[in-house]
């Protein structure tokens, strides 16, 4: 599998995931670039990857965490998480604007680890096995976070739809 094929299969999905995780299109592009630098350095070994989706998202997640750590360190330990709702609504499309807004507001209120699993499952179309591998979790943990996330999302959206 070469770089172009990897990008065609996972580039857009990884960008979307990074955009929601980092909250900025510019940062998402920078981190995605780092991800592909890293993949380019793997060169021959890319042919032997068994689960490419999990591999790419694991690198993307690690790079995003490294980026955030650096950013937090530069800003003396405080990370602004404002406008998450707006970021999510800019990155997804639905049948009507109102439902997009409701879903974005609800997703923004979820704990980060639950939101991450739901985003990976629904928008990036990863399986639980791939999510677990990418996030360094067991499959059961990933599945239970997903279930809690869905339950919380349902309670947040109740009465709004």
């Amino acid at each position, binding site marked *: 599998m070469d770089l172009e094929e990897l990008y065609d299969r996972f*580039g857009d*999905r990884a*960008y979307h995931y990074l955009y929601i995780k980092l909250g900025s299109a510019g940062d998402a*592009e920078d981190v995605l670039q780092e991800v*592909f630098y890293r993949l380019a*350095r793997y060169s021959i070994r890319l042919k032997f990857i068994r689960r490419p989706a999990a591999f790419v998202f694991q690198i993307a997640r690690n790079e995003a965490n490294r980026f955030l750590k650096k950013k937090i360190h530069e800003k003396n330990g405080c990370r602004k998480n404002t406008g998450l709702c707006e970021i999510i609504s800019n990155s*997804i499309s639905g049948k009507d604007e109102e*439902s997009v807004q409701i879903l974005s507001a609800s997703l923004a209120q979820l704990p980060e680890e639950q939101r991450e699993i739901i985003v990976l499952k629904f928008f990036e179309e990863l399986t639980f096995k791939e999510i677990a591998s990418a996030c360094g979790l067991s499959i059961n943990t990933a599945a239970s976070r997903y279930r809690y996330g869905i*339950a919380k999302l*349902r309670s947040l959206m109740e009465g709004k739809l």
Partner: protein
Amino acid sequence: MKIQNDQKTEDFLNNFSRKPAPPELKEKILNEARRERAEKRVMTPMLWKVGLICSASILTFLLLDTFILPNQKRYIASLVGTQPVIRIQKQDESLLFLAKLLNMTQEAENMTWLKAKLLRKHKSNRNNRYEEFLRLKEELNEDKI
């Protein structure tokens, strides 16, 4: 009831999809990645060639070494000097040949016999080499008588 509601939530979520990434992003990312790969490449085409030639040479050497006859190995070792027994044998053969030419076969055979015996005793009696030599000489004289 809860499962049904969760199922509804999942169905609701399935109505949404991600927006596509900017169209020029792919070219930008891939060009940069390729440039990075070209810059930081460890194995240049020249290094690949050198590596292949070295590997082929080593492989050929190992194969030849496996298939070479044991006698040839011994002969080569004698020429190199790692096996003195063979070297002496070869010298003795030449000596016998020379002795035949000079009609001194008996003397040459005696010398060869003495040398061979000495060589057999060499390892075990390194310290008493001289005494052993004398003893063997006497033995030879007795044999002659």
